[in-house]
């Protein structure tokens, strides 16, 4: 779990759980928002990582 991707996934899971719980009151909505935030963080970081590779690599 010490790869950059692994740590990022762990970090995204923690952050998305907090914000999903904080910003919604129903469990279903909390899970949905948490999943959206989690996927946005992971996919966004992945896309930005590849962009930096092509631009600066």
């Amino acid at each position, binding site marked *: 779990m010490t790869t950059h991707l692994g*740590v990022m996934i762990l*970090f995204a899971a*923690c952050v998305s759980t*907090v914000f999903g*719980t*904080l910003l919604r009151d129903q469990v279903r909505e909390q899970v949905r928002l948490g999943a959206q935030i989690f996927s946005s963080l992971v996919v966004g970081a992945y896309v930005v990582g590849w962009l930096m590779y092509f631009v600066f690599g």
Partner: protein
Amino acid sequence: MSSPPSQPSKTANPARARTTEAAPDTAKVTRACVLAVLVPGLGHMTIGQPRKAGVFFVVLMTMFAIGLAFGGSFLPFATDEPLVFLGAAAQWVVFVPRLLAGFAGLGQGAVTAVTYDYGNTFLIVAGLLNTVITLDVFDLATGRKRPS
């Protein structure tokens, strides 16, 4: 030509409307916010949201523990380095765990560890998330935000 009859509305006399609303109990609000800073989740527990409190406690304590396990360090209040100062302030927002870990000799920081910066990030972000959680406690306790 006569003007239409005025209809009573709730906004006709805002000053009177304000006085009829229950004013937030300052002591209760302060206590909830202080408890939220001391231990993650304790603020939500005091205002009657135990499920959210449990989630916040588990997640933030996990982040704090991961930060320590990754070799993160407790930052000093270095006034000549503003970012380090802000990082130290953020770490103290999780007050009791930060205090206990400091007494236990944890958080010395393993600068040579591959995960050192990850550890610092987890420790700082745990405090920043608890800041947002404390603001939520303030909004709920003062009635600015109502749970559905």
